[in-house]
């Protein structure tokens, strides 16, 4: 799969994140991995670790923006990466 890596990145404001996991279930990349029966959490784009959401695999992100839409506390944003 073709992904863009250098232009943007997922940024999570940990202070605002309540660890609900909506973004983890909403992410289509995670969904595909789960559909294939892959339970390796290191391949997930975002995952809830110790009650807070963390970016696990930035390179897998395709920039669809579903996680931003799903986040109820507006903690998750797609930001421009520094060059």
């Amino acid at each position, binding site marked *: *799969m*073709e992904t*863009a890596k*250098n*232009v*943007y990145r997922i940024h999570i404001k940990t202070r605002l994140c309540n660890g609900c996991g909506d973004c983890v279930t909403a992410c*289509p*990349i995670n*969904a*595909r991995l789960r*559909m294939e029966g892959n339970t390796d959490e290191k391949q997930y784009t975002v995952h809830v670790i110790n009650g807070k959401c963390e970016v696990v695999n930035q390179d897998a*992100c*395709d*920039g*669809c*923006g*579903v996680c*931003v*839409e799903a986040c109820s506390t507006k903690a998750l*944003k*797609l*930001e*421009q990466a520094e*060059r």
Partner: protein
Amino acid sequence: MYPHYEQQIKKDKIVTEMKMIDVDAKLTLDREKCTGCAVCVDVCPKEAIERGPVGAADKKLSDVPAVLVDEKKCSFCGVCVHLCPFDALELRINDQPKLLVVEGGALPQLKYEEVKRTRDEGKTAKKFFEGELKAHPEKCPGGCATCTLICPTGALTIPKREHPWDKPPKIEVDQDKCILCGVCIAGCPGEGALELVRTNVLSEGEHTEIWDKIVEKLKTPKTS
């Protein structure tokens, strides 16, 4: 120090600028016309353009643009301007719209049909590709509908289900409406659900071997 590079990212446009003592080249991307199809990314001879979060930019969920030009890599040749199907890019040299690659005969004139964009009224798209967009519904996870939302000409549809208890239906392609731009490929988060095969780029007039290279790049099949 010359050359001086500058980039301004505004809400409606991105201006990439190179200033030299007697030349001032300006590449403007109209963010409202741009869909994020990434034809410019494929075509750029310097690989200066990179794709951003196409889906998120389309839904206005992210401030990051769908495509971004690296001002230091860009040579301001105008190949992307000539091949943009949505006329979103403009190159101005000393404040005059100028395309030296076309005037100099390196690229031919494109033979295109104007197609109305169904999503944005009053905006048009150019159809100059020939080929086919194949859908592989068995690989589509179903239920995200990004491709149907993002398609500028309404070629992709999800059929209505007969009964509410049926499984969500998978994607369908209308080949007549499709302009083969490839936005759906860039936006689809699934793997291999859509396949784009361009067989020809319609053009007329003189050209050099640069054009053959560009056509070859465009013809390589792309999957989501």
